[in-house]
């Protein structure tokens, strides 16, 4: 009965690789988000989708590409990974105001 789930939980990869993180919510929410939390715990919005439509696209390198196949899923694909991409990535969803966060994916780029 997990509300917002992410896979994988941990991701260790080499610089230059391409990787994807998947997110699914079973709450019936219409809006989903991707956040990046760096080593200093700063939580920053990256993208937001509402009903599969991109509504927020913060200043994020275009190596990051979100994809929303349906309202319940928002995946994040990252090309040509760099050391600075190492962080915890959180997916979240909301219907009105309260945002529910997934457990996070810890990405380590070596």
């Amino acid at each position, binding site marked *: 009965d997990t509300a917002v789930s992410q896979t994988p939980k941990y991701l260790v990869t080499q610089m230059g690789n391409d990787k994807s993180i998947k997110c699914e919510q079973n709450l019936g929410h219409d809006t989903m988000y991707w956040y990046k939390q760096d080593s200093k715990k*700063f939580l920053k919005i990256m993208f*937001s989708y509402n009903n599969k439509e991109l509504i*927020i696209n913060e200043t994020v390198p275009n190596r990051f590409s979100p994809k929303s196949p349906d309202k319940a899923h928002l995946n994040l694909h990252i090309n040509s990974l760099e050391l600075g991409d190492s962080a915890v990535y*959180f997916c979240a969803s909301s219907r009105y105001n*309260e945002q529910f*966060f997934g*457990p996070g994916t810890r990405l380590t780029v070596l």
Partner: protein
Amino acid sequence: QQPVQSPQAVILREGEDAVINCSSSKALYSVHWYRQKHGEAPVFLMILLKGGEQKGHEKISASFNVKKQQSSLYLTASQLSYSGTYFCGTAYMDTGRRALTFGSGTRLQVQP
């Protein structure tokens, strides 16, 4: 523009009170408060939508001063379970209700 949280860190003994402040330089639509424990996801505590609104969650409450563009989180008679990092997330009048900008967090440690 990121809201400013203060203090950055606070250490309490069980039973003591604390106040965490969140200030914005832009007009606010709403303020959200979240708590994140180490290695876990942020968890929603409460949202404040109207000026002067105060919300409560167990012994944790918050206020919202629209004119001053500030919100404060009040932790009363703190418990060990209150330990964690508290974030305020702000939504601005000019960008709509969905977009949240989070402060840098306040690390709270409650000791026995």
